[in-house]
């Protein structure tokens, strides 16, 4: 179904495609601040794509709910009496009031605070005060249930939803790269979310927060003070000459340090027991157990980098945390941090992992403290008449790298620090933005590249 496309008149296909040039890495700065483009993003990216909602462990019992967003539409993710997870628009069908005003909790049903309309956990309208007396029974409750997301599905316990009935199934949407990214989180076993989602708001465009996760160039400079504080050892983590990139369907990508293929070949020969102590003289995240190769693929398992599930779900710290970047207008983004732990993790492991999660990321994290201003000032410089015409230069590594395809069909690039992930994000973004519906996006989007990139 073609959308109405607020802003589609001004931003036709040719105009959108001119915003990023994959041949030169030139990005038009207006993608970070233009109001009409933002309105179009809400329709063509957020309402169309699969959005991360919650992990199953956040809502284990009937009635448990967690509030999230699809673009700027607030939704209730709730488990019903049958154990199904429903994603319901949080707006009463009478006058539009929000039904849930807490951000999480447990409910028997959702009662509107305005006139008392009552909805079941599956969204059905089950009670309307005065139906007989005031409405004189001239009222069809069946037609006014809460609006459900068009599709809800999960992978490895992670729930996603889309407002588009014509969106491909979640597994196809994720593709190899999306599944590898979520597999990274579960590579040490099934996980659960630790109580407490950190939320803060930054005065930046959501895309610059997203593209920064592929950026391993800024780490040594932006985060120099965190490095000298002793909280982390950038050199041990960064490995600037051992970077691995995977570019996936519909804009998903993974970028960052990678275990070299010859080292992984040695790991592959080891038992899970042997892997718990293997270090190969490098301070990498623990060598992953065998199950990780099934979840991430024989090549994907080498990645120690950052996956992003398009548009806005970042997986970091080897899968210990995930971060949503929620759009709040072109110049504002909410950052939500979820922390995950293998089920039954021993106390010392849990304690160490939480220490890392709390002290690196989040608004008070020693690493992340220094990111926000880079993003807000870069966003701000996309507004001025003279500065917005300059574009941004995403040129690093362009034309210098080769995509390899392994026996199972996984595609990856072994290289040094680069900007392939950022270019892939903006290239995919122009394709999402130019397409009027899923059929057009499927017909016109770029397949993950082969050959020289």
């Amino acid at each position, binding site marked *: 179904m073609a959308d109405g496309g607020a802003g589609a008149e001004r931003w036709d296909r040719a105009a959108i495609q001119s915003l990023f040039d994959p041949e030169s890495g030139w990005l038009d700065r207006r993608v970070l601040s233009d109001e009409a483009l933002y309105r179009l993003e809400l329709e063509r990216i957020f309402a169309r794509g699969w959005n991360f909602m919650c992990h199953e462990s956040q809502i284990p019992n009937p009635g448990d709910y967690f509030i999230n967003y699809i673009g700027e539409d607030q939704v209730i993710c709730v488990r019903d009496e049958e154990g199904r997870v429903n994603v319901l628009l949080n707006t009463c069908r009478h006058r539009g009031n929000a039904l849930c*005003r*807490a*951000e*999480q*909790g*447990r409910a028997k049903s959702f009662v509107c605070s305005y006139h008392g309309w009552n909805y079941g956990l599956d969204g059905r309208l089950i009670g309307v005060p005065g139906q007989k007396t005031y409405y004189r029974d001239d009222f069809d409750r069946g037609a006014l249930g809460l609006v459900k997301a068009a599709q809800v599905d999960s992978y490895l316990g992670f729930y996603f939803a889309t407002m588009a009935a014509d969106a491909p199934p979640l597994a196809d949407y994720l593709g190899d790269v999306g599944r590898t990214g979520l597999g990274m989180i579960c590579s040490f076993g099934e996980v659960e979310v*630790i*109580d*407490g*989602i*950190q*939320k*803060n*708001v*930054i*005065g930046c465009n959501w895309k610059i927060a997203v593209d920064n996760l592929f950026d391993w160039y800024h780490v040594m400079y*932006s985060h*120099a*003070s*965190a490095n*000298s*504080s*002793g*909280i982390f050892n950038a050199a041990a983590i960064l490995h600037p000459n051992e970077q691995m990139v995977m570019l996936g369907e519909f804009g998903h990508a993974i970028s960052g340090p990678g275990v070299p293929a010859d080292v992984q070949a040695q790991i592959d020969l080891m038992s899970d027991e042997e892997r718990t102590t293997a270090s190969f003289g490098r301070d990498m995240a623990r060598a992953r157990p065998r199950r990780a190769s099934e979840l991430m693929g024989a090549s994907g398992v080498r990645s120690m980098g950052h996956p992003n599930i398009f548009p806005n779900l970042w997986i970091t710290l080897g899968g210990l945390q995930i971060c949503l970047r929620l759009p709040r207008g072109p110049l504002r983004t*909410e950052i939500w*941090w979820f*922390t995950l732990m293998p089920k039954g993790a021993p106390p010392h492991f849990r304690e160490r992992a*939480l*220490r890392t*999660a*709390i*002290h690196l990321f*989040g*608004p*008070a994290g*020693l690493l*992340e*403290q*220094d990111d*926000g*201003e*880079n993003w*807000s000032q870069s966003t701000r410089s996309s507004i001025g008449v003279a500065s917005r015409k300059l574009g941004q230069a995403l040129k690093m590594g362009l034309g210098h790298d080769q995509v390899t395809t392994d026996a199972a069909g996984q595609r990856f690039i072994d290289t040094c620090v680069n900007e392939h992930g950022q270019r892939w994000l903006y290239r995919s973004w122009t394709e999402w933005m130019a397409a009027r519906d899923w059929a057009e996006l499927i017909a016109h989007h770029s397949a993950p590249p082969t050959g020289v990139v």
Partner: protein
Amino acid sequence: MTEVKIDPRASDWARMSLPDRALLQYEVEQFFYDEAALLDARRYRDWLALIADDIHYWMPIRRTVTMSDLDREFTKPGDMAFFDDDRELLEMRVKKLEAGSAWSEDPPSRSRHFVSNVRITDVAGDEITCDVAFHLYRTRLESEVDSWVGRRTDVLRREGGGFRIAKRHLFLDQTLIRATNMSTLF
């Protein structure tokens, strides 16, 4: 909310005479004002000298919850938090601020730490427990303005003629943190 305890070991405050209470109240408030002045003056090393070796400096995450769910309003110790620091971590924060490359604090923030509603709730031996309202106002660069208001529970311990902070638990009045970061100390 009163937190006067029945524990006989912790009943010193209840047994103290009014003049003794007034003196202690004065002493504690002056300590908090001096501490706030150190932070506002960015004298972080001097501030660290006021921190006990066994400090627990903790800011849990607050959530918007219904009345029936109020016991889950704050995350619990051992779950996620904004700060969950021991002395080593506070030293790292100060080291970062001194590194010369802490870009989120260079140019430095301008901050004003206010403390008020100081209520001593317990005196037990060398330790004084206080319930304090705080307001940390910060501006940055040209137009960034942040304001954090909340309640905190502090434990002050008498050591060598002064106080050291043995516990600081911070309960913010915000759920969504309306700031780019929290790069200042509370």
